[in-house]
């Protein structure tokens, strides 16, 4: 008997990966699909080494015409850069205010009418699927050129993103305080403010700050479609073939984004230090009467930062609304655009444009993931112990991430001509930078203990990586790759606005020529495709992680 009991463990090592699920459709099928799309894209976009080399020559010639950069009138650039900030802040603020009730209605705990819950969830899905540049294209037709269109475009797209994340936060809260306050006879609204909003506040704040960071990047390019901000100057410079000024403006954008990134990093560090101190502190000081709350450091910081945020938001609104359209014109324009949407028109051109966008996005993701992985491994200190290389790679990635991909697309279109090849290159670069960042972050978090144990057995570098690092890394690798692909898809839909292939070109053309019925068809098709691919990604993530 004891022998039979001993046997199963003895035979176990012969089985590969005991206890792990067998490779599923998701683990084999999804990477295969990406590779297949990439091979197809290589043939379809005619990406051969010779073409690439020729392309690089063209880009080098363009870069030659860009140096030395000039800024022209630096004063106007600075004021456009500041306008960009106000657009991002106003848009993020409006989205935050709209997102709270939206997320409350979309969360699983919502006890009101079901229809409202569905509407809220639908709004979140649709606004998330439509990029802010697309919103900007339409809004410029409604509220006119300028920062108001930009602010609203940022707000509309962010509502979906912020609303989704808020709803997740609300759903994760532990239910007992909600039950307790329901038991005292509080109304739903009172209960929501007292137990849900109060507990979610720290997470909501960090979501909003994270989104603000993304929105500042997005606002920097809104000017390309006339929706205010520094992108307008870039559009003008490239349009008038003033490439030296274009490079100057790009540098201003990159420096602005990097400086803000630094500010955000420092603020985050200060906040997390404060959070530790905060958790043990008295929330209020001694008041004049025992029943009234007094002031202490913690309350001053809480109230002060809240008020400061409100003031900044109010100023941003005032800036964005500096030149508001008349109500009558707004109404007439809205009615014209919305009635133009019906009935939506679908055409083979739309299908082709979307197909082109999807192919660009998926093939760029494959390139981005492969190069990103190599760069991440080379720049992770405990894997490759060559400091200068890792530092240089990290710096390059930060720089590349600082440039919005539509700016790359703009440059590649200028160098290589119109078409999906330029878009593919732009997306591949930004996917590489993005994936490298995600992968580096998760490689740093790999538990080093098993690696040291492997090294102690005399395993080589490659062996340590394959047996020690890879198994720990693979779930986040897949998750981040799918996320990169998700972002690439949204971006690929707008690159056509600057002529870099995909559905964006048709979209802009339909709006410019007032064929709003085609616009509606494109939007519907876009939402369907984005949501469908998101569903596949969600399914794959569940299967694999």
């Amino acid at each position, binding site marked *: 008997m004891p022998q039979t009991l001993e046997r199963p463990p003895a035979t176990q090592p012969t089985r590969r990966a005991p206890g792990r699920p067998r490779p599923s459709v998701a683990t084999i099928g999804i990477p295969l699909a990406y590779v297949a799309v990439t091979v197809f894209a290589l043939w379809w976009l005619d990406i051969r080494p010779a073409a690439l080399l020729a392309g690089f020559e063209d880009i080098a010639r363009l870069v030659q015409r860009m140096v030395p950069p000039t800024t022209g009138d630096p004063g106007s650039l600075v004021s456009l850069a500041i306008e960009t900030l106000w657009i991002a802040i106003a848009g993020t603020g409006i989205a935050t205010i709209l997102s709270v009730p939206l997320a409350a209605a979309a969360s699983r705990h919502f006890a009101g009418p079901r229809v409202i819950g569905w509407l809220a969830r639908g709004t979140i899905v649709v606004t998330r699927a439509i990029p802010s540049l697309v919103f900007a294209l339409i809004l410029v037709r409604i509220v006119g050129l300028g920062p108001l269109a930009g602010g609203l475009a940022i707000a509309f797209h962010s509502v979906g993103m912020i609303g989704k994340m808020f709803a997740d936060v609300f759903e994760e809260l532990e239910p007992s*305080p909600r039950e307790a306050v329901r038991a*005292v006879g509080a109304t739903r609204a009172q209960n929501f403010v007292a137990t849900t909003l109060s507990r979610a506040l720290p997470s909501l704040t960090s979501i909003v700050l994270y989104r603000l960071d993304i929105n500042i990047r997005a606002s920097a390019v809104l000017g390309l479609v006339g929706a205010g901000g520094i992108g307008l100057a870039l559009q003008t410079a490239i349009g008038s073939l003033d490439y030296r000024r274009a490079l100057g403006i790009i540098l201003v954008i990159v420096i602005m984004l990097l400086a803000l990134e630094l500010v955000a990093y420092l603020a985050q560090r200060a906040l997390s230090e404060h959070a530790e101190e905060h958790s043990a502190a008295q929330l209020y000081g001694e008041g004049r009467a025992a029943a*009234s709350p007094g002031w202490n450091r913690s309350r001053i910081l809480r109230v002060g930062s809240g008020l400061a945020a409100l003031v900044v938001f109010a100023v941003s609104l005032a800036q964005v609304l500096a030149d508001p359209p008349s109500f009558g014109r707004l109404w007439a324009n809205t009615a014209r655009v919305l009635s133009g949407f019906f009935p939506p028109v679908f055409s083979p051109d739309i299908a082709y444009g979307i197909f082109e966008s999807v192919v660009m996005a998926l093939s760029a993701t494959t390139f981005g993931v492969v190069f990103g992985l190599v760069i991440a491994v080379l720049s992770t200190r405990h894997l490759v112990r060559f400091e200068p290389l890792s530092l240089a790679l990290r710096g390059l990635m930060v720089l590349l991430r600082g440039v919005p991909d539509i700016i790359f697309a703009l440059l590649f279109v200028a160098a290589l001509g119109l078409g999906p090849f330029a878009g593919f290159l732009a997306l591949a670069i930004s996917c590489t930078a993005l994936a490298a960042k995600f992968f580096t972050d998760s490689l740093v978090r790999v538990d080093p203990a098993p690696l040291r144990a492997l090294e102690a057995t005399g395993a080589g570098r490659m062996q340590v990586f394959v047996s020690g690092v890879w198994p720990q890394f693979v779930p986040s690798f897949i998750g981040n790759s799918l996320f990169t692909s998700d972002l690439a898809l949204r971006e690929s839909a707008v690159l056509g606005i600057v002529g870099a292939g995909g559905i964006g070109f048709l979209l802009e053309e339909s709006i410019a020529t007032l064929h709003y019925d085609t616009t509606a068809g494109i939007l519907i098709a876009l939402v369907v495709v984005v949501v469908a691919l998101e569903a596949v990604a969600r399914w794959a993530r569940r299967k694999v992680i």
Partner: protein
Amino acid sequence: MTLIQGATGMAATGKADDTGASVVLREVGMRFGENVVLDRVNLTVTPGQFVALVGPSGAGKSTLLRLMNGSHRPTAGSLSVLGVNPATCSRPELRRLRRRTGFVFQQFGLVGRLSAMENVLMGALGSLRMPCYGIATYPRPLRERALANLERVGLVDQRHQRCDTLSGGQQQRVAIARTLMQEAELVLADEPVASLDPNASISVLQTLRKLSAEDGFTVICSLHQVELALEVSDRVVAVRDGAFVLDASTSRTSQEDIRAVYAQAKQG
């Protein structure tokens, strides 16, 4: 055996005279699908009584308390809580009933990142119309009452402290002070001390007992420790498999009686 007869006897008297009773249950049954949680139970609780519901987990104690505050509806029988039937009344009526009925939870139900005082003030939300956020948004008279209630549970010095930095016993006291804000006529407590250590348990229960005696509110408290029930309550109701197996005054009951009832029920 005599004790079980006593239980049915109580039910009979409950039927005859329940005007002015805090809680009356008549033949109340509850089932979730095939699973019978409560099997036609009868109970009459007179105002000011401190009733301990004892029994193993899963016996139906929580369900019973949730029926009384309208969180569940019985599948059979009828009930009356402070003269209102929570199973059939309208939503506004239920809100009014909940305002008059305190509920103390095993998990306290506090918002950890708010101060003790803010959590106590939430007990007054039923009497307010608008949502409130932060101490300063509550009217001053309510703040003074919140302070007085914190004083009564012995936590006036911790009023501005974050609740998640308080001990378990202190947190449950904050929850009790929140209930006091309702000036409730009936307090339902669902395993209020199950997550506390023995010393904190007895002190929290004694606080509840003292407050009930001072303000005259009725308490129905579920406990799984028989010795605690005997120490603080006027009346012990033992529940097992959804039925009452003992219902007697605490002064006439000993731990042995309760054990005997369970032993008997097991054999039966």
